């Protein structure tokens, strides 16, 4: 127990009444990262489940890993395929890492600094939620976005999107999507169009770096991409969104451990599939006639519905509400894709919009239970 002794010594100046008392939340975050604390239940149930927010969040991070690693590879692959030279998988991963890891570092450094400052200021413990948010933000950005923009978006998301509402658990919008939406509207030239999705695409003549949805919106053919490519994710797009296969592995981890809501995921897929089928029957433009099944595997739909829509804080919180919320995210995503050529990818806006409506959905679900209770009393009075 050597580490424990060192920690106990380090802890002394941070304890109540000591010099560094104010900074206790920062020390506590560090200490509880190493050790599950020796706290015992004081009131209420005497036994407690092994789950805590740290474990919930780390499970999500583990679920994100396949998509992240594939995203890093794909970033390198997309760049290197533009060049005439031949390359290996390792080359692709090395190139991808050189692009993606600095973004993750910036996201964590900026975001966690703000989280620590707020924790010290408000005197509460540092919440683990940012560990997930901080990884999600770079994963849903285009690869060539300048690092300072990542930093500004993170700061916006954490301060305005989360802390302004009272911190973790109180925010209305998903913080990672808030960051992306901020970047999307603040720096549109870096976030949309046909040259941002592949690293340095604009420097290489004659190579298209458009996403499939972008091509469809522009009325171009997407025949060059096969279904397998779309499913495995060997296509241009935001860093980690492209591989449906890797996202499915993540979804499996989330559902299997019980950490992510399967209701939202299934609801979302159902909503999108049915809407896609209806549009297939209509088929008035390229995006309408785009096969419904392919809608599910291109763009950020899979990534969004598995990792963003299921955020427990900003999603609907009742079980019935989760179904409704998931289905509506799916429907809206396809609707935005099809009807709004300015935003070929609809999943971000669909989720943000439903985040806003989630409390309303819950309200009506709960109201049904309240009505049942009232009706019961009323029947009694009349009979």
């Amino acid at each position, binding site marked *: 127990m050597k580490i424990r002794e060192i920690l106990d010594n380090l802890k002394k100046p941070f304890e109540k009444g000591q010099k560094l008392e104010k900074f206790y939340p920062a020390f506590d975050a560090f200490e509880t990262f190493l050790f599950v604390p*020796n706290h015992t239940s004081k009131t*209420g*149930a005497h036994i*407690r489940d092994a789950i*805590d927010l740290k474990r919930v969040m780390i499970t999500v991070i583990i679920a994100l890993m396949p998509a992240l690693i594939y995203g890093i590879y794909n970033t390198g692959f997309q760049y290197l395929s533009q060049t005439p030279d031949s390359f290996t998988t390792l080359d692709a991963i090395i190139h991808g890492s050189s692009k993606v890891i600095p973004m993750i570092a910036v996201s964590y450094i900026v975001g966690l600094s703000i989280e620590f400052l707020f924790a010290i200021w408000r005197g509460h413990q540092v919440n683990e939620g940012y560990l997930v948010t901080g990884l999600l933000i770079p994963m849903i950005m285009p690869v060539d976005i300048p690092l300072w923009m990542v930093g500004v978006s993170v700061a916006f998301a954490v301060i305005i999107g989360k802390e302004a509402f009272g911190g*973790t658990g109180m925010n209305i919008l998903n913080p990672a999507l808030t960051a992306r939406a901020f970047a999307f509207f603040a720096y549109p030239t870096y976030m949309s169009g046909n040259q941002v999705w592949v690293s340095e695409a604009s420097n290489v003549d004659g190579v298209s770096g458009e996403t499939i949805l972008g091509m469809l919106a522009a009325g171009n053919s997407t025949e060059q991409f096969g279904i397998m490519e779309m499913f495995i994710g060997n296509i241009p797009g935001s860093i980690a969104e492209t591989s449906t296969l890797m996202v499915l592995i993540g979804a499996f981890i989330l559902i299997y451990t019980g950490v992510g809501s399967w209701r939202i995921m299934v609801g979302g897929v159902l909503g999108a599939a049915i809407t896609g089928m209806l549009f297939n029957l209509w088929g008035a433009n390229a995006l309408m006639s785009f096969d419904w099944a392919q809608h599910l595997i291109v763009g950020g739909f899979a990534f969004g519905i598995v990792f963003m829509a299921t955020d427990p804080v900003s999603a609907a*919180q009742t079980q019935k509400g989760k179904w409704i919320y998931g289905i509506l995210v799916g429907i809206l995503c396809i609707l935005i894709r099809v009807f709004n050529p300015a935003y070929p990818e609809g999943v971000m806006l669909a989720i943000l919009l439903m985040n806003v409506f989630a409390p309303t959905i819950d309200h009506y679900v709960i109201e049904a*239970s309240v009505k049942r209770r009232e009706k019961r009393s009323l029947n009694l009075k009349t009979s």
Partner: protein
Amino acid sequence: MSKGIRITKGLSIKIKGSPKNQIENLPLASTYAFNLNDFHLHVPKLILREGDSVKRGTPIFYAKSNEKLKFVSPVSGTVKEIVRGERRKIHNIIIDSDGNDNFVKHKPPVLDNSSVQELIDFLLEAGVWPLINQRPFDIIADPNISPKAIHVSCFDSSPLAVDYEFMLKDRLSEIKAGLDYLDKIVNGELFLGLKSCQELFQKEFSNYKTNLFDGPHPSGNVGVQIHHVNPINSGEVVWTLKLEDIAVIGKLILKGEYLPDRIVAVTGPPVKNPKYFNLRTGANLDSVINNVEIDNKNDVRFINGDVLSGYKVNSIGYLGHYNNKLSVLREGNQYRLFGWIPFINNTVPSIYKTSFSWLFNNKEKDYDTNLNGEERAFVATGEMESIFPMDIYPMQLIKECMIGDIEKMEKLGIYEVSPEDFGLIDYSSSSKIEAQTIIRQGLDYIYKETQ
């Protein structure tokens, strides 16, 4: 006539050290005590003073709100000490036993030619009224408000469950006498909640309204049973009793004496020979604890009641007024290096599959009192609804209790619940929310605002 009701939501927690079917009789303890926390929201008014002698059944204090509501001595002897805390608030009243066990003789009313009021008055006078609880508020029943029904749960589904059929098989005639008496008070609206495997009880209680419940904990909680059989509407009051307390009432009616003896299980992972003891309400626990072997006695927690909703007692403390179980747990006051990472420390069970412990879900496991994390802001990870078998949204109710919005609390069903119904939510919360404490505060708040 019985109806089968299947409870699907919930969680049965299997803990090592469930009691063996063996009852040990112990001689009378040297001291007995009232813990005033057992009588929530009631302020005691003393009748006797320190040094006064008492018989079993002599009133010691009454409730400030109703002087007919008397609390009587469980044993004969002298009032030894009145333990007070801040602002002279009474915490405990300790009685020295003289070993003779003399008792006050009562003359019970004849059931057939007594009015309901006479039946109630007798229970108040004899000191058994505190055994009757009411919902809403989960407090001792108000004798001035007539209830719409009485509900009794006849099985235990909580962790380290006791076996009622085994404990009470010799007291069936007393239980029936008590049930008949109560049945008269509520004019037949008396409901028993049984488990479908309780064949003895089903046969013995066939004359009463019974419902058969199946499913995980909290199917044995009377609140869940009420909700599924005959839910409480606004303005209604329901009384609840424990089965062994009905035996105490039955004894009073058959024999004319107050004898609060009960079978109590001493259970839990550190107990080497968990079994039942024949004890009396308020008994000093010293002799019990010396009669069981406990691992590492200095670092365990004794709990009056079950591990989800009971309260902590000292090893030299006293048996509570209502429990049939003394649970023992190892204190979890040690650090665990990187214990928060999934699949590390697989011995710590979880309802999430982030630990291999779920592979052995049918095995009894070792639990301790570690919080397994720190309290965090309320993040609704969705576990609450899946373990709460009522048409009530637990998370929203907890939030309204924190805010203190009485109208919304009423709408969300606060009158149907008691803190014990939220025991599993305390257990499973990933944000380590103290749901039972919050619900208790919410109920107290409404009670104080509306009385």
